[in-house]
């Protein structure tokens, strides 16, 4: 077990060391698997538990995810021909990368959850910790580290545009409401009051290094607009009160709709995290206008004639790379997501589904498609298997279990089982689990479904 933990840490560590972006993906397996669980309303506000009352304190839902769009561990660690030793193959990993790659980590932890069904309506309240962090790493950046600037990059610009970190941490206080409209429609919405804890936003990141193929002159160009809030510096400590004091205040909305097209076919869609946070506390912004500087080597003429030449050169470099700072407040939009899906119950035991997810982060659109199958093995046991194509990875097979009974509901689900079986080949790893308490009879059970 110790070895297992060590290896998992190594995997995560290696991914972090090699760096990431974009807001990490969610465990979308939940969407298609467990629409009737109390926690399902996090993915579509028109959904809710079948029980009369649901509540949880600290156990309702915990979701963790990590992803690396650039390469899998198997791409960088390869077997040596003469024996079974592994060797690092940077070229192999680099060949798999896109121009800009993302390494991300996300967590969603329900601190408090409550819901109650009122005839055709459902009202809920939740407090959820949200954390997303990503690191964007250009392919050229990694190639530069491993290969240097003296090989393939001679005469070319090492394109490190987009290199940066994005991180968002806040507490979400959600008030949800949904209602059945007729026999086929159901709509829901959730208003979320947000209290920001910390944020890092790389709004603009341009960085290039060009090495003259003849003279080896180095030209560095770039620009930066980096905004941070709640990040402690050497003179301060992390302020945990940000979770509750609403000094970095924001709000967001979730919307959802469900349409029971036929007895067996159900269509649904949701728009999540439509909102923003205004960051005002402990703000430190850094910016650098577009610049370009070419270092041609020590100027012999000046070095001979000016005894202070090297001090002057040092001052020049400081001036060129000086980054302006300010403490102006700023606003960040939440990474909005759109989910559209449909399920079809083949019979009482089996159902299939298809779901299309879209992340809109930093004006970038990243789609994910999932196909799923659900088995109702018992009234209290559900099993779901899904297949996901996302993050330039098509090797994502997920599985999930849900147990309902004795006033409790428990689930665990992942969208990438191969991440457990063969972590070295995985680009994504997500797992969600939760335990909630239910009061009141499940309508499905009552109906004998």
């Amino acid at each position, binding site marked *: 077990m110790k070895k297992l933990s060590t290896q998992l840490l190594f995997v995560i560590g290696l991914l972090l060391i090699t760096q990431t972006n974009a807001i990490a993906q969610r465990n979308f397996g939940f969407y298609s698997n467990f629409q009737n669980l109390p926690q399902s309303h996090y993915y579509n506000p028109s959904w809710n538990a079948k029980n009369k009352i649901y509540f949880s304190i600290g156990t309702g839902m915990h979701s963790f995810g990590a992803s690396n769009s650039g390469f899998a561990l198997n791409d960088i660690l390869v077997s040596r021909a003469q024996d079974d030793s592994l060797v690092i193959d940077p070229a192999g990993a680099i060949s798999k990368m896109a121009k800009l790659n993302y390494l991300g980590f996300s967590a969603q932890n329900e601190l408090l959850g409550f819901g109650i069904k009122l005839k055709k309506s459902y009202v809920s309240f939740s407090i959820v910790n949200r954390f997303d962090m990503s690191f964007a790493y250009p392919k050229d950046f990694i190639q530069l580290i491993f290969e240097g600037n003296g090989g393939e990059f001679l005469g070319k610009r090492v394109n490190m545009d987009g290199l940066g970190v994005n991180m968002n941490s806040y507490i979400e206080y959600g008030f949800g409401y949904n209602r059945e409209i007729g026999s086929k429609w159901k709509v829901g919405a959730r208003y979320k009051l947000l209290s920001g804890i910390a944020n890092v936003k790389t709004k603009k990141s341009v960085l290039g290094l060009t090495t003259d193929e003849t003279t*080896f*002159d180095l030209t560095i160009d770039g620009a930066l607009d980096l905004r941070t809030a709640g990040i402690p510096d050497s003179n301060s400590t992390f302020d945990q009160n940000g979770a509750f004091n609403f000094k970095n205040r924001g709000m967001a909305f979730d919307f959802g709709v469900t349409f029971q097209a036929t007895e067996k076919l159900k269509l649904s869609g949701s728009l999540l995290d439509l909102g923003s946070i205004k960051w005002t506390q402990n703000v430190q912004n850094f910016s650098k206008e577009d610049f370009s500087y070419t270092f041609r*080597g020590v100027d012999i003429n000046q070095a001979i004639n000016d005894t202070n030449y090297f001090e002057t050169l040092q001052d020049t470099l400081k001036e060129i790379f000086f980054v302006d700072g300010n403490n102006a407040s700023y606003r960040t939009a939440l990474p909005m997501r759109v989910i559209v899906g449909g399920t079809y119950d083949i019979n009482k035991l089996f159902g299939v589904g298809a779901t299309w997810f879209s992340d809109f982060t930093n004006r970038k659109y990243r789609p994910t498609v999932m196909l799923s199958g659900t088995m109702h093995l018992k009234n209290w046991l559900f099993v779901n298997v899904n297949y996901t194509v996302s993050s330039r990875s098509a090797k994502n097979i997920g599985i999930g279990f849900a147990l309902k009974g004795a006033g409790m509901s428990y689930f665990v689900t992942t969208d990438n089982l191969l991440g*457990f079986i063969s972590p070295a080949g995985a680009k994504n790893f997500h797992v969600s689990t939760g335990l909630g308490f239910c009061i009141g009879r499940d309508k499905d059970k009552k109906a004998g479904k």
Partner: protein
Amino acid sequence: MKKTNFYWISVFTLLALVITGCKKAGFDKIATQAWSPNLAVPLAVGEFSVYDILVNKDSSILTVGPDGAIAIVYSDSADIVKASDIIALPDQNFDYNGSMAAYGIPPVLTFTGTQTYTINQTFPLNNPSGGSLFTIDFRTGNLSIDVETNLMHSVKYDFTFPDLKENGVVVTRSINLNYTGSVPQQGNSAVNLQNAILDLTNGPGGSNEVRVELAIIIMGSGSPITGTEYVDFSLAMQNLDFDLITGNLGSIALPSFKDTIGLKLFNNTSQGTFTLSDPKLEFRFRNSFGIPVDISFNSIKTKEISSGNEFNLTGFPPVFSLADAASPGQSAVSTLTITDQNSANLQTILSPTPKVLIYDIGCSTTGLNTNFITHDSKINLLGTLTLPLEGYATGFMLRDTIEASIDLDNEFVESAMLRLNIENGFPVEASVRVVLVDQNYVLLKDLTNGFKNLINAAPVNSSGRVTQSATAINDFTITNAELPIVKNTKYILFEVGGQTFQGNLGTVVKFYDDYKLKLRLGMQVQAKVKL
């Protein structure tokens, strides 16, 4: 029951897959490897004009013509004749032994009362330099007057120097000897000659003579005058220096003067031939003596660096007369210019990479009329060799050594390559050999594997002007195996051989002030770091 079994089988299978999957990762099998990035960086950049190359190397002066053409000027200045070389004022001593008869004093048994007797004397000035001196305006000096008599009476000496004036007033001095019963009686006085003017023309000879008038006043004590007594005096002029001397100084042969001009352009040149168009050797004399001087060149020659051979200039004017200054404080400038037109072989003696130019000068005064010399009079010679950078050169070889250390760690460096980019705007090509040696000059690494043509000469048009720069890229590689060896490098030896553009064909090139040599040094390192 069947479905329950399926559930537990699924769970077990999943756990088994997870555990075995993690084992498959095999992180404990990662082998040691090397990280081998290739790094390229610029090290240095420099742009050198002819000023940077030549002026920084020595004290020569570049001159730029109206069209930008450049000439190197080597010069040296020296005072070849000083006032002390022409005239010196030694100490002067005049003694007079005066008897009673000389003064016309008769013998008496008892002398009482007061009686005055006078005598005029002219003394010759000791002038070893020769010539006739008319006046001396003293800068420093002292005139001491000593008197002695054995008269048994009180005596007063009244001296008058009618030709010596202080501030325009004739100098006089009195010395009183009060008889107290013992003889001989002695006394003295002095004159500070600073700023005094002595006229030496009022004697019978018309020059070089000093007149003295002496009045002796005897105040009788009742003692006798026997007629055998004496009344002596002596004059001594010491520590004499002058501000101005006038006179007819005549012909004086002066010591010869020898000077050397270092031609540092060729300092590091071991061999080769330089043919420079229109060299010019100029001697500029500034004479502040009021005396004409004739200059004769005993020899003008160059000395070759490699062989030590000397090459004499011939066919130039043997004697050159210098004008004299019109008045004290002024000077007259006379210039002698030697070129290929008024010499037989100036261009020739400058061709074989000369290291020095040597000239030996004799001179003599030709003062027939009234002349003058001031304390600061001198003849200053400014010798200037002007070498227009125009012509052609072949087969020249330069050598130089610089201290250096190379500290590239072979543990982290697989190989290192130095790249030298050259953009040559000069009409000179260069083949270079660069050698790394240790402190005992033992060869460690021949970077260029013998002579390497580093850069071609920039081509020139029919006027000798460069039309476009020549460019070249030169790479020097040190392998990992060589790194431990070159770590012992103490010196880098450079040998540069070359010629001007088509120098072997006699194509004339000209150097202009806008020519540039651009050097850019970069380094590419194949690193090797064990992981």
